[in-house]
């Protein structure tokens, strides 16, 4: 007697791995179920960030979620051997969908916008305490920061610091425009911040935290 295969939800990390590696209908059903989970995660992310994309039509957002889920599925299946079991399998898989959706959302929100590598406006550092002495300190800090950005950073570090920290360009948008990875850009930003902090400390503008 043969027992007909009936798909049922996969309910543990080990079962996910086994099902996704299975041949035939069992493997196909597991992949379809995983795609459904990834699509749910991508839609969840888009729902959370929808306010930044009020100009995008609903069906375009659905397409964006589907593309994110498709790419996340490819990434998850390609990295199955890297799953270490440090979290539930579904948690591990969700992060791929959130990454894909998040990157697409940030890039969509900036589509057609110019990325400015010069300071659009320097922030004012007033901290809300209306004191003449405080305002004078803040103005001095701002001048010192401007000098340090100009003199202590390399041109590339300056561009990255200005775009990411001052002009708040999303890192994935800048990464795409400069053909760099998020990790490489963040390393540049981190190095720039370290230099600026060191420069401000050398001139007595940094203090030990109490």
């Amino acid at each position, binding site marked *: 007697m043969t027992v007909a295969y009936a798909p049922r939800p996969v309910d543990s990390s080990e079962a996910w791995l086994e099902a996704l590696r299975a041949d035939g209908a069992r493997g196909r059903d597991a992949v379809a179920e995983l795609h459904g989970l990834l699509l749910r995660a991508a839609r969840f992310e888009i729902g959370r960030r929808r306010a930044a994309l009020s100009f995008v039509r609903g069906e375009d957002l659905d397409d964006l979620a589907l593309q994110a889920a498709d790419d996340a599925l490819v990434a998850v299946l390609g990295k199955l051997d890297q799953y270490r079991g440090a979290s539930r399998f579904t948690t591990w898989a969700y992060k791929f969908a959130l990454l894909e959706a998040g990157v697409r959302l940030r890039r969509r929100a900036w589509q057609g916008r110019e990325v400015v590598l010069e300071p659009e406006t320097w922030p004012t550092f007033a901290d809300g305490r209306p004191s003449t002495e405080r305002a004078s300190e803040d103005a001095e800090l701002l001048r010192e920061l401007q000098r340090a950005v100009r003199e202590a950073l390399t041109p590339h570090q300056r561009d990255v610091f200005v775009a990411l920290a001052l002009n708040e360009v999303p890192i994935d948008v800048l990464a795409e425009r400069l053909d760099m990875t998020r990790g490489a850009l*963040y390393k540049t*930003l*981190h190095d720039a911040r370290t230099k600026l902090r060191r420069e401000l400390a050398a001139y007595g503008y940094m203090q030990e935290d109490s």
Partner: protein
Amino acid sequence: MSTRNEKLDALLGPTGPQVTCEECFERLDEYVELELRGDDADAQVPGMRAHLEGCPACGEEHESLRALLSH
């Protein structure tokens, strides 16, 4: 070390050691589950908190994974 000016300190990012974006993604699932279980996630994944404060994109993904699992 800080400048005692919150806005400038935010521009300069967190001090101290931190993981890279790649290491952050690698361990984000583990970190969030530790947090949601009430374990000391920062002790078990050193440098993660500082990175999440310094990198807005990784920070958003952390918030989203936490929210999705709590949903």
